[in-house]
């Protein structure tokens, strides 16, 4: 087990190097000069542009810029944004907010998705199953910004149950509405996934055996069916967690959540290379760690899976 973890962590190094290189290259290849854009519709004197380019190493060839960036990272210096704030500080301020948002969303979609999926699977073809199918199809087909705007309008502006946007410091009660919005999309996926998996498991031999042994249904469902149905769901949840951590851009924008997605978006628009690459590096790390945890979780859920050294 320990050997397996070490091996996986070592694998992360080339992945990390490769992704940062790619991202850096893409930011570098983004057409247009961010320094020129800093001046809006006005044209600054060329000397001023040159000075600023030098400061941000934009006058160097790509590969030199990349190695300067890598070198700084190893020294723990993630660079500074155009507004003079260390990128590490921005990371420290935004990631916890997005983490809380993602955890809330995962919690909502997990609780709702698994329970609805389980009931649908156990009562396949019933009225509950049919209505759940309709609802989840509707939710899947709605773009997230539509759900977000509608939710904001109804629950924030009309009913006043929630604050329309997230207030300063992103208090958790303000995050509930955006989290619910984020959860709607994956809720549908999880419901479908759980349902299919439950139906599949329900017909397995070991379930029949358990039933013929005389075990009550109240024990078979949670222990035998649910536990064995959760493997694909857990994988999905983990992937979804990764996605939520790095990319709730639209929802964060609509609800003005001071999180990763909104900040990264602004950095991309402003062409702030260091901010973008540092954010993405951390995102890749999170993704790798989450995936490792999922693989380890398999072993817990399914005793047949063992990680050899």
């Amino acid at each position: 087990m320990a050997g397996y973890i070490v091996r996986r962590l070592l694998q992360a190094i080339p992945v990390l190097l490769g992704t940062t290189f790619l991202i850096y290259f893409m930011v570098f290849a983004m057409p247009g000069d961010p320094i020129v854009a800093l001046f809006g519709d006005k044209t600054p004197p060329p000397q001023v542009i040159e000075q600023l380019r030098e400061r941000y190493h934009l006058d160097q060839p790509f590969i030199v810029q990349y190695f300067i960036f890598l070198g700084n990272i190893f020294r723990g210096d993630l660079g500074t944004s155009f507004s003079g704030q260390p990128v590490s500080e921005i990371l420290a301020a935004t990631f916890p907010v997005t983490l809380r948002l993602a955890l809330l969303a995962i919690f909502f979609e997990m609780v709702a998705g698994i329970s609805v999926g389980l009931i649908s699977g156990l009562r396949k073809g019933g009225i509950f199953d049919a209505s759940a199918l309709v609802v989840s199809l509707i939710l899947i087909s709605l773009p997230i910004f539509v759900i977000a705007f509608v939710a904001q309008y109804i629950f924030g502006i009309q009913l006043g149950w929630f604050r329309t946007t997230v207030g300063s410091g992103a208090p958790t009660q303000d995050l509930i509405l955006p989290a619910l919005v984020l959860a709607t999309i994956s809720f549908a996926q999880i419901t479908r996934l759980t349902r299919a998996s439950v139906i599949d498991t329900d017909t397995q031999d070991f379930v029949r055996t358990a039933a013929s042994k005389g075990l009550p249904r109240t024990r078979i469902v949670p222990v035998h069916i649910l536990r064995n149905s959760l493997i694909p769901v857990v994988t999905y949840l983990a992937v979804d967690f990764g996605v939520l951590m790095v990319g709730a851009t639209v929802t964060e924008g609509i609800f003005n959540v001071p999180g990763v997605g909104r900040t990264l978006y602004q950095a991309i628009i402003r062409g702030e290379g260091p901010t973008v690459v540092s954010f993405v590096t951390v995102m890749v790390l999170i993704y790798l760690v989450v995936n490792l945890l999922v693989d380890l979780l398999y072993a817990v859920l399914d005793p047949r899976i063992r990680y050899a050294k």
Partner: protein
Amino acid sequence: MKIKRFGVAAIALAAAGALTLSGCTSGDASPSAGAGDSSAVITTNGNEPQNPLIPTNTNEVGGAKILNSIFAGLVYYDAEGNPVNDLAESIETDDAQTYTIKIKPDQTFTNGEPVNAQSFVDAWNYGALLSNEQLSSYFFESIEGFSYDEDSELTGLEVVDDTTFTVKLKQPESDFPLRLGYTAYLPLPESAFEDMAAFGENPVGNGPYMLDGEGAWKHNEKIDLVVNPDYDGGRKAQNGGLDIIFYATQEAAYADLQGGNLDVLDAIPDGALSTYEDEFPDRSVNQAAAIFQSFTIPARLPHFDGEEGKLRRAAISKAINREEITDVIFAGTRTPAHDFTSPVIAGYSEDIPGSEVLDFDADEAKELWAQADAIAPWDGTFQIAYNADGGHQAWVDAVANQLKNNLGIDASGAPYPTFAEARTAITDRTIQTAFRTGWQADYPALFNFLGPIYGTGAGSNDGDYSNPEVDQLLDEGLAETDLDAANAKFQQVQEILFQDLPAIPLWYATVNGAWGETVENVEYGWDSVPLYHQVTKSE
């Protein structure tokens, strides 16, 4: 990684980048005391400043809004854009080249340091020094001693005594006093120079407001300002403070206003432009702003030089139905242009000789185009380049369609994906089409709309326009010490511009804003920023 766009408005906001702004207050419009709770804090929308909060390094709205609230410069602009002395007691000149500036005695920054002549001279020298890489350094280029090539002191600045200093310019520039309300000309306390980075994070000013303690700037969230009790200029705060909340999208800010979480808003998202005035009756504004929009046709394009070029430019201008586009596409939130400046600027006139070229007349347009074809036949497509991330596609397509229909030529938009890409192509002159241009005034003066754009070799002369007559008149205007006489020269410049049409004027932008039920005395300045100090709030 999922990256989607928020919508045009957000991008336009971000991309608008350095549309520079300045001064934001009015003195005489202050309401009578007791109209509201003088301790109530006003909340308003803003953007995360793009740069540290250093006056000479701030050239966009997000930072300027904050700096103009926490600093007092020599003058501020009232709602009409007229300069009013703030810290200055007098600004005098005999020749428009050497200015003697006296400031009020016994003024202090909020940390107790005195505001004296040295505070201005040091701040300006800091802003101008090449190696300090300040974004607004070019505001000092006309002061003697300024250099873009090496670090050099502004030798034109001289401290006479504690409250007096003189400014010597390289050449006469009569609108220099009008500029002094711009953010770049604010004073700095001595402590700022010890650690400018730290100062940019926690600036110490002398204005109507001050930061609510260290760390009041919560990045990407908001900045809290409280009243500076020691400020005694014309912009004394009538409320208890100002919370500027940073929004990534205009939609979010608008939703907060609807939900009662925001008091004053100065930007309405595109989707709400046609409805916001009904939704906030008597609590909204749609007034002209100091923003001029046009598209520039560089003379280097084939068929756009000389007599043929003049005919073609006039034909294009006459083929555009500005009224229709501002109504249909902008829902009345743009006003058709009548000149090259803006109606909010002193000296503006609708009836400059030659401005008829802006009136829609399809027949005459065709006629002019045919005359040009007689000189050299037209071929190819007329294209207007724009940045696709700024919400420009609708009007560019409309203009192209009108040109197609009214001139019978092939015309289309030429989108660049990002603002940075479009600006780069324009700046390095690789662009081979006409392109969208806009200008937001830094300070309320006619010259600011003309000199930087149409003077030969001027900084923002992206179309490389050059006309010795225009240069001559601009210089003459600057040398006039009388503002009216100067403006007369600048109007003559416009007469020539109407003949040459280096850029085709389109329309002026308006400021669209709304405010909540509990606030009163909301007024928007010449620069579209609300005059926050005079807003009162009941509750």
